[in-house]
Structures are given as C-alpha cells and as structure tokens.
C-alpha cells in the first residue's frame, strides 16, 4: 500500500448499500498513488462500478448510499459529495458504455465535459489538447456524435472527460466491445494521458490490457479486495492468469470441474 501523503485517492473501509438492503461493497479499501495508474479487476457484480459511483457521487440516482468508510481525494474528504463538486475538485469519469450525448455534436459533447470550468481560455486550451490527442474527432467536430463508430465514441468519451482537466481520471471498462487493435489504441492513449500527469484508476475486465499499463492492481470479489499487488506480480500470478487472463496455469488444458478455485478464493479473502 502507498502512504497517504503520496496518494491522490484513498478509499478506506467503504461500505455501500443499494435500496437500503443490498450490501455491494463491504469494507473496501483502495489507494491511487499520485501520477500512478491503478487497475481494478474483478468479475461482473464484484462492485467495480459501484466503487466508481461512490467516488464520483453518482450512487444517489441508483438508490445507493455509503453507510460506512471514507473517500479522500487529495487529502480532502469527499465522502458522499455531490457530482458537480467532485468534478470541480478534479475527478473525471469515463462511464461504462461510453454514454456520449448521441444527439449532440462532437463539439457540444466536449463542451459539456467542460461544464464546471469558468476560464474560457483554459477551456480552449483543453479543447485544443483533446483534438490534438484525437485527430479523428478534430475533423468531424460539427457532426452528430451518434454517427461515430464504437471506437471513436470511446475516444469522444475520454476526450469529454479530459475537458474537465482532471487530476484523476476514472475509466470504467474503456475496452468493452472494441476490436483488439482499438483496445491497443485506447491503452496507448491512457498511458499518454498518465504521462502528462493525470492519475488513473482503470476498471477493466480485460485484465491483460489493464495490467500492462498499471503500476498496481486490485482484485475485487463480492465487494471486497481479495488481492492487492504490483501489476507485474499479478500478471505473473498463476491464479490471476487462470481466472482473468484465460491462460491455464501449467500450460495444459484442464477441465473446469478440476479447478478448485473456491479454495484459492477463500485463501485470498482470509
């Protein structure tokens, strides 16, 4: 774990409940180091998206709330803060499924991303930077965003988030539904964004892609962290390879009936 002083985001002992009954996160703790890339892995329903919602203040519209624990951003307590404040403080989120404003133009989508910012000059600067990063958007600024291809829409979603000039970027499954070549492109872009000084928390099902750019990885299972290790260690780990990378541990095909994963999971949780 990283010491609190060097971390930009630190989540501790977080408990989130939906509809007052469904406990989705149970005592989750996680840290994103300043200027680092952290990967968050886990199967469907493990609570990855819920964690992001808890950070950005989007739980409310899903009838969820934080019942325990704290979220700190840059030394400031933002537990349960409203989304506008979170964005203003410097956290931007690329939501799962891209969620671009399909009826609006690319230009309008990007301007919507800069909604919380007041300085026009700074917004213009970000705008130029985003178009520089995504030339494919630059040539089609006036066209309707809904007509972009899946990959271009993902670029737009990332560009829109960058328009808020975030210090921490949260990405929820940016590689979902993209062709391998585009996944590589998204990975390079995330790396590039990070190199320019933005910290990144990357939620992915594509563990190979995520761990290839992350410094550190967390594995989530039923709402709690079962592993936290440097990304290199996770990549080399036999269990991780088997569960998340789809590679058999000993190189031979095994039947699932023989895989006693529950024991390993139990060992992790302990």
């Amino acid at each position, binding site marked *: 774990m990283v010491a609190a002083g060097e971390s930009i985001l630190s989540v501790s002992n977080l408990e989130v409940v939906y509809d007052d009954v469904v406990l989705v996160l149970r005592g989750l703790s996680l840290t994103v180091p300043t200027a680092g890339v952290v990967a968050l892995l886990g199967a469907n329903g493990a609570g990855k998206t819920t964690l992001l919602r808890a950070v950005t203040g989007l739980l*409310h519209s899903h009838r969820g709330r934080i019942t325990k624990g704290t979220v700190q951003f840059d030394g400031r307590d933002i537990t349960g803060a409203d989304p*506008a404040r979170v964005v203003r403080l410097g956290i931007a989120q690329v*939501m799962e499924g891209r*969620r671009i*404003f399909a*009826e609006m133009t690319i230009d309008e989508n990007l301007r919507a991303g800069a909604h919380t910012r007041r300085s026009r000059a700074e917004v213009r600067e970000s705008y130029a930077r985003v178009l520089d990063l995504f030339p494919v958007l630059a040539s089609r600024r006036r066209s309707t965003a809904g007509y972009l291809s899946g990959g271009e829409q993902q670029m737009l979603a990332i560009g829109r988030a960058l328009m808020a000039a975030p210090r921490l970027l949260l990405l929820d499954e940016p590689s979902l539904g993209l062709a391998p070549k585009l996944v590589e492109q998204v990975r390079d872009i995330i790396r590039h964004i990070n190199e320019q000084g933005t910290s990144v928390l990357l939620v992915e099902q594509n563990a190979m892609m995520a761990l290839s750019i992350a410094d550190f990885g967390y594995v989530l299972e039923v709402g709690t962290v079962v592993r936290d290790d440097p990304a290199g260690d996770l990549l080399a780990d036999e269990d991780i390879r088997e569960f998340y990378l789809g590679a058999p541990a000993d190189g031979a095909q095994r039947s699932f009936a023989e895989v006693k994963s529950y024991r390993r999971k139990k060992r992790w949780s302990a």
Partner: protein
Amino acid sequence: MSPELTAFLTNCFAGLALGSTYALVALGFVVIYKSTGVINFAQGGLLALGAYLGYTFSENLALAFGLSILFACLAAAFVGAGFERIVLRRMVGQPPFAVIMITIGLLFIIEPVLTAVWGFDNLQVPNPWNIQTVEAGGLVFGVRDLWTIGITIAVVTAFFLFFRFSGFGLAMRATAFDPEAALAQGISAKKVYAVSWAIAAALAALAGITLAAGPGGLSPSIGFIALAAFPAMILGGMDSPAGAVLGGIVIGLAEALTRGYQDQLFSWAGDNVSIIVPYLLMIVILLIRPYGLLGTKDVRRI
C-alpha cells in the same frame, strides 16, 4: 381581393394568433417533459396565475403594460422554480406517475387561490391594444393578435438560441438526453430542473397575459386553454421544442379555420365543433405517427 380569399386569410391570421398562444404553452410542457420526464398538468394554473399577476401589475399598480408582462413572467418563473425546489426535488428518482399526480394537485390548488384573491368576475386587463385594428392590403388585423404573434416569434426565437447555443442550454439538452452522464460531467440536475420549471412558467404566464388582453378578458377559467395546448404538444412530439411550436400553430389554424367555415361546412355538427378539433387532430396524427410530428421514436408514453 375576392371576399372568399379575404375571409380565408382573416381566418388564417386568427389561427396564427391562437396558435401562438398554444405554442407558448406547449413549449412549456415540452421543456419540463424533456428535462424531467414529467408532464406538468399545472401549466394551465400557472397560465392563469401569470394572467392575474399581469392584471394586478397593470390595474392596481398602474405599471406600463410591457412592464406588467415582464414582471408577471418573472413572478411566475419564481413560483415555478420555487415549486420545483420545495416540492418536486424531494420526488427525484420517484416514479413519474407520482410526480404527475402532484402537478394535478397543484392545478386544483391554484384555481381556488386565484378566485379567493381576484374573485369570479370577468376582469378587463388595462392594455394599449384593446380592440384596435389596422388595415393592410384589404385585410383587417387585430392589434392584439399582431402583438401576440410578434412576441411569440421573439420569445420562441430567443428560447431556441438559448437552448441551442448557450452553455446552460447545452447542460439542459445533456440532462434531457442522459441525466446520469450529465451528472458525471458535473452538470447540476437540480439547477436544470429548476430552470426548466421557471422557463415553462414564464412561457405560460406570457400566454396568459396576452390572452387576457383579448376580447375574452380574464376569468378563472382562462387556464382551460392549456388543455388545447396539450394536444399541440403531443401532436408535435412530446420531446421536441420545435414540434411544440409547430403543433401549436397547426392546432390554432385548424381551430380557427373550423370556426370560420362553421356555417358553410360544419353546420350539421353544431355550433362548437371547433372546440373538439384539436383533440380530433391529435388522435388522427397519433394514429399515423404515434410519436408525433417531430418527436423521437423511443419516447416513453404515459
């Protein structure tokens, strides 16, 4: 000009004036529906409230009529936004049906309040238009009608410029399209909802005052006109501001033309057939285009 043509054009002009009023109210319906997913049945109440406030500013406070209109719209906007802030904000995330029932409740509360303050009598709003007419090219235009059309064009244009080009208009469209994604950009849904209500109430008030300055005067039943604007909104497509304006004009023209040719064409149907025309037209158009003239296909129906 032949008398037939003169009669036709006169009817069309009356239809445009009536349609302008419908367009303002229908636009208010759409603004609230688009951003909050709720049909505001209290629109007629806000229209009546705006008209009575305009009356008070003009008659009791002896303000210039233009100022009375402005203040009445501002006051109505304040009431609309306040109602959203105090009552409806607690209902965010609740089923739209419950919120719609609340707006119906508001409608029935506003009416007795108005009669308690201003009484049941038909009032004449002091205004510079009265029943003056101007003549041009053999046609006679009512000054009030001309102003109503002119003001509507100006206000609707201003609204579309605001909605299309301003930063807050962008935020409103983003919220309408995907509330959660808009929130994630730091757009305050609360502010968007409150401003939507303020705009809708101001539009309703404007429609109310211009209507009250007409030959019908001002009575508690003035809010009923919103019922005819309702088909205008549905006909245009519930989520389309342009559709609301178009729907309003279409309904207004249809109603005025039916009334104008009542004796020649519809004498068999009785005297007041023009009153049902908006609803007939709505049914026919919905049968052909279930999502309205300019509405999007996947609009939720209530």
